[in-house]
């Protein structure tokens, strides 16, 4: 059925249907609406979840660890400083291989203080041991949240569903929502792992590991990420055909000018692609939905005809060769014989406006002979 929902409400609606055992959360703009909405469900008996209004995001993730280690389904929602405060605990949850789900509403990191959107928060967590899925619309927020626990429990990896602060979190659109029964059937019963409530077989979780064993444990985590590619696709395919691939391809088959983007900016970029197509230019777009594990092979296969690729990063590279997406993509394209020219476009920082005109300008820049490696979009001179 169709409901008019913001991204935050779509996340909360999915959480209501999942009915996790524990939600532990601390409010932070622009994700606050998620715990607000969910606590309403709890207060009105719509869910049997235990809602823990913790005193910090550090404790939110820590409580999720305690709950997940007890065999319960645990979730939280956060943004920006909250995710950064969780950092140590995120790595810990990843290392313990606990299937926790976080809705991260992307927002810039202070200083200077900004409550507005960019991807610098979750991109900083790219090596924290979490599957990262980037939604581009409230619909996709809902869809990915519903898929999150089957993915987390089958991979034994925690899942972060990321979406843009304000552009997606506060945007009301029609969202196709499953019936409660259908959603719950899809999510299924929690998969059982050895846990703290199994008193017949007491477990020791999170113990000390000497140099003799630590590396092997981390290698196991590495393997889990490699194995997760098929699982994410299988869960996605079961949900809807358009989730089978980790990337969204838009007019890419013969595209020579390609933009690569994550999140809500894909909407504006697609408009620009269509404008260029109308002018006879072979423009196309790839949207990275699954950022971790990184879909290198799929991107490589998709941009076989590309001559020039504009890679859009919604974070500012500081002392680096380029943004996170730029560097990841370049390392893959290096093995491609055609070796297209790549340029990095930094956009949307602290919610700097990004509209179809800006995307069109990027296409125009791409067609120039000489272009700086790193370009700043819609920045005052």
């Amino acid at each position: 059925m169709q409901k008019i929902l913001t991204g935050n409400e779509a996340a909360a609606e999915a959480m209501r249907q999942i009915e996790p055992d524990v939600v532990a959360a601390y409010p932070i703009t622009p994700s606050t609406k998620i715990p607000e909405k969910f606590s309403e469900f709890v207060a009105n008996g719509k869910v049997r979840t235990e809602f823990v209004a913790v005193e910090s995001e550090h404790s939110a993730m820590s409580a999720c660890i305690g709950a997940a280690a007890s065999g319960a389904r645990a979730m939280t929602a956060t943004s920006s400083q909250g995710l950064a405060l969780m950092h140590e605990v995120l790595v810990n949850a990843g290392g313990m291989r606990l299937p926790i789900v976080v809705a991260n509403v992307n927002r810039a990191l202070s200083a200077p203080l900004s409550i507005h959107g960019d991807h610098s928060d979750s991109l900083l967590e790219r090596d924290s041991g979490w599957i990262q899925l980037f939604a581009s619309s409230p619909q996709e927020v809902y869809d990915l949240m519903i898929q999150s626990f089957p993915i987390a429990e089958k991979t034994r990896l925690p899942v972060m569903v990321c979406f843009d602060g304000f552009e997606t979190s506060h945007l009301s659109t029609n969202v196709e929502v499953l019936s409660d029964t259908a959603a719950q059937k899809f999510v299924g019963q929690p998969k059982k792992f050895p846990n703290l409530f199994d008193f017949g077989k007491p477990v020791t979780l999170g113990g000390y590991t000497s140099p003799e064993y630590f590396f092997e444990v981390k290698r196991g985590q590495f393997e889990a990420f490699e194995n997760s590619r098929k699982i994410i696709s299988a869960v996605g395919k079961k949900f809807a055909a358009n989730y089978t691939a980790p990337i969204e391809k838009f007019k890419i088959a013969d595209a020579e000018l390609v933009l690569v983007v994550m999140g809500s900016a894909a909407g504006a970029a697609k408009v620009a692609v269509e404008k260029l197509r109308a002018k006879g230019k072979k423009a196309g777009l790839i949207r990275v939905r699954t950022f971790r594990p990184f879909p290198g092979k799929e991107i490589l296969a998709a941009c076989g005809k590309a001559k020039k690729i504009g890679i859009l990063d919604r974070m500012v590279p500081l002392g680096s060769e380029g943004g996170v997406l730029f560097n990841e993509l370049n390392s893959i394209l290096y093995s491609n014989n055609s070796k297209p020219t790549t340029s990095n476009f930094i956009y949307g920082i602290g919610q700097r406006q990004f509209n179809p005109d800006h995307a069109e300008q990027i296409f125009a820049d791409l067609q120039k002979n000489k272009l700086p490696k790193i370009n700043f979009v819609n920045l005052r001179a």
Partner: protein
Amino acid sequence: MNLQAAASRKTRLTGGHRLCPGCGLGAIVKQVLATIDDPVVVVNATGCLEICTSAYPQTAWETPWIHSLFENTAAVASGIDAARKALVRKKKLSGKAKNLKIVAFAGDGGTYDIGLQALSGALERGHDFTFICLDNEGYMNTGYQRSSASPLGAATSTSPAGKILAGKQTARKDILGIVAAHRIPYAAQSTAAHHLDLIAKAKKAIETPGPAFLNIFSPCPTNWKAPTALGMEICKKAVETNFWPLAEITNGKWKLNFKPQSRKPIEEFLAGQKRFRHLSKPENLKLKQQLQKEVDQKWQELLQLTEIS
């Protein structure tokens, strides 16, 4: 609960752990956990107890045990408590498991310092768990750096006894008072050596619905630079000098469990611990007197609290 009954229960922390000779931690944990009939989940902060009992691929724990980080012990316990409540509500937890008890162990660093925020949050939220501070007055696992539990004048590796600064310059934080200010149902102080007092308080804490807190004085002969055989003796001196009063707070009512006929001078507690050796030098007399004054003042405050509450 008597000692015999506690001693005859199957231990939840087996031998073979790697704690130092004379360490109080193992003795405290065994005594505390021996008071519980119900299933127990143990949450452990980073520290000596965690490192020495859990080194992969071995474990000294015969009960479900989790370590996550240094400062989040009370928050992890909160999550376990929340999971228990939800699973009972969803009828996914049955039998004896429904009565499970959650016991968190953290050192003084994980309680007074880095873990204080998570502890305060969990106490305010009213989770049903017992938080036990194993207080050996410093960061022992890393070679005795000062914590806010280190006493005035103590020489630690980050508050050494130098020519200008003779050990730690500030008094201990009043953690029991801080916890009591949360108005939780039960909080108490005991030591590793006061067995009857300790197991009575542990049983009461664990059986009390809602949050409970114990601060247990735990000897660390290794870092206090004391003979290993002297650990329990130092605990007794700590109580007899009023340095570490045996106290409890039940629903806001303060009680002293032991009042010495005449309190012994602080020197008796300091003796034999080389971390206080410099306090016997004439130039540090003032610092020692200040410590005595602090102990006596705190005792007077406690007496007042027991009278007014």
